[in-house]
């Protein structure tokens, strides 16, 4: 009986969470199909499809999906930049995190807090400084420049996640494998990486999402020439009005994040399970 009411509560909280998270998206979806939609009407008075034939220029989804909106170029650029940034961040952070968690390392906490510094500096300051440095180096207005600049605000996230992943990695598990005669390579491939993988994926998810949402650095370092989903969206909704095309662009801009979330969700669940296994081994060991 108690269990049922507990489940009921959990269900209520779950439904409540879905409403809070997904609720704001519903008006955006309706707006993307609306032509006239004003307070106090619950639904649009005139829908886009009833006027699209008479319009001299593309309206709502006709605009969003037309080449004029630049949305596909922007999505491609966003994906390319954020994937490259994530890969680089991973390559840089994996060894660094490995060193930072070693028990012989003295200034661990101090160095870790230094890594969060870029998050405190205003994005505008970072962006202008990058531009000033990159212009003489010929990196301004290039993809390379944007990717390098994105690394700075992204590294703290990747670093934090990887450090905690390494901390969660029980050395006893690796030792056991060693005792059972596994070579260095076998230990890495069959023990360390599988145990770290879910955490690595979580870190990548973070950096992908952060990188694909950076506006000012992308705009200034890219000299306005490299269009990404954030720069496109900012130029559209900067005026303060959310019309049908702005709503449509917003929905498209949400797709990559949504796909990433779905793709990694299973692995993050694995992470929790593997974590539990690690802990149980730890317990029996003691």
């Amino acid at each position: 009986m108690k269990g049922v009411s507990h489940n009921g509560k959990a269900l209520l909280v779950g439904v409540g969470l879905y409403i809070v998270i997904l609720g704001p998206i519903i008006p955006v979806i309706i707006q993307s199909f609306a032509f006239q939609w004003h307070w106090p009407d619950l639904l649009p008075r005139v829908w886009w499809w009833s006027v699209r034939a008479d319009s001299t220029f593309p309206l709502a989804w006709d605009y969003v999906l037309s080449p004029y909106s630049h949305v596909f170029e922007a999505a491609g650029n966003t994906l390319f930049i954020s994937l490259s940034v994530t890969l680089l961040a991973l390559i840089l952070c994996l060894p660094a995190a490995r060193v930072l968690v070693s028990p012989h390392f003295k200034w661990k906490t101090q160095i870790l807090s230094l890594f969060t510094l870029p998050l405190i500096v205003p994005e505008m300051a970072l962006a202008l400084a990058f531009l000033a440095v990159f212009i003489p180096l010929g990196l301004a207005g290039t993809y390379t420049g944007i990717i390098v600049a994105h690394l700075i605000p992204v590294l703290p996230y990747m670093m934090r996640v990887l450090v905690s992943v390494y901390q969660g990695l029980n050395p006893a598990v690796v030792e056991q494998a060693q005792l059972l005669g596994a070579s260095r390579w076998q230990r890495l491939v069959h023990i360390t990486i599988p145990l770290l993988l879910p955490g690595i994926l979580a870190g990548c998810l973070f950096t992908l999402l952060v990188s694909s949402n950076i506006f000012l650095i992308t705009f200034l370092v890219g000299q306005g020439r490299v269009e990404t989903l954030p720069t496109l969206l900012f130029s559209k909704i900067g005026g303060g009005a959310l019309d049908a095309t702005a709503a449509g662009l917003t929905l498209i801009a949400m797709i990559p994040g949504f796909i990433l979330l779905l793709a990694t969700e299973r692995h993050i669940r694995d992470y929790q399970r593997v974590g539990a296994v690690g802990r149980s081994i730890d317990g029996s060991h003691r």
Partner: protein
Amino acid sequence: MNLLRNALVLTGLLSGSLIAATPTDQIAFRTAFLDGQLPWESVSTAARSEGAIDFYYWGGDDRLNVWLERTVAPDLEKLGVTLRPHRITATSDVVDLVLTEARAGKGLGQGSVDAIWVNGENFYTLAQQDLLFGSFAQKLPNATWFDWDENSAGGSLNLYDFGYPTQGREMPWSGEQYVCAVNRSLMAEAETPHTFAELERWLEANPGTFTYVKPPHYLGNTFVQEALYEMSPEGAQGFQQPLDSFTPESLARLLAPGMAYLKRIAPLLAQARNGIPRYPENESALMQLFQNSQTAMECQFGLYHVATKRASGQMPDNTEEIIFPRHNMIKNKNYLVIPSNAPHPAAALVFTNYMSSVAAQKSKLAAVGYPLGLDLWMLSAADQAAMVEAMPPHFGVTQAALDSHIAPDTHASLVRVIESLWQSVVLQGSETPIATLVEQAMSQSK
């Protein structure tokens, strides 16, 4: 912010060792063109060899985006120039870009911005930082469609941008006028106010049926400026001087009657509780009150805004434009500017010249609904008729009536002082003598 910016730019300069000098042939090209030594054919040829133009503009208007790619890009392609339109959120971001590049030693032919759609403060910043290509506007072949007579009302709009002399360093591209509209089911023809005094009488009889956007939003600032124009004994002319030509006393004398008026009408405005109105923060909040018939009248920039908004259902069908305030309807222009480090200066000239042509202006008017940048009276009778044909309609007023009541913008250097005075006198209801407040505001803005 400026200090921070300069410090950052300095860091960039110190770290950058590869500061290139501006190519001398680019400088020679600019000097020859600005001196009128270069025939237009040479500019066209140079533009064709440059091959592209990087144009930065506010990208929030779908119709403008479509028109640039559908009409402008193919037309420029015929002139051998590829249009690369770059959509931006805030023009000040591009100004920062130009500034940073210039400080890093990128001169003519080496920057990344060829042309920007600007007006007011951003042009002022570029001019102050000496980041402009030069006085090119009157040298373009299509300059003949513009009135360059400083002493005419129309000509001064082409030569003064928020009171600051353009000296032909930017080319007028589009025009705007601050227009008020009324809901005829709430306000009869005979009740229409045409002056601020009449508006006050109407508000006394019908409290809560009007409001304006809250300054320092430019839509609110403009309303305040028009009230100041009408109430001041000197009219709009008194507001065309720079700040340093005033003493606190002389400026206080100019501002006092208008500020007193705005303070008087505040309790009569929409959404006023205990005599304090909640001013709408932006255009969409203002429009919401008007759409819901809470207000009978609204004012904003947009010579054709009633036509566009009636057509898209954003305004009631009985909305009409009115002449308000008589002889003090602020009109200004917005411009295309070429920065001093434009990577393709010849192509930028060809681009601005194309944008100033009768054909492009007409097509922009019809396809985007932006008012003309050129001056109608400079055209041939046939072209004038064609332009009028392409114009979106007016409701309740004629174009001629709207044209005959225009006034210039307030000098850019006064805007800050007026904003801060509105805050203390009108919003906070300060009882401090106005001269003291002006003195404080003047010392802050120096």
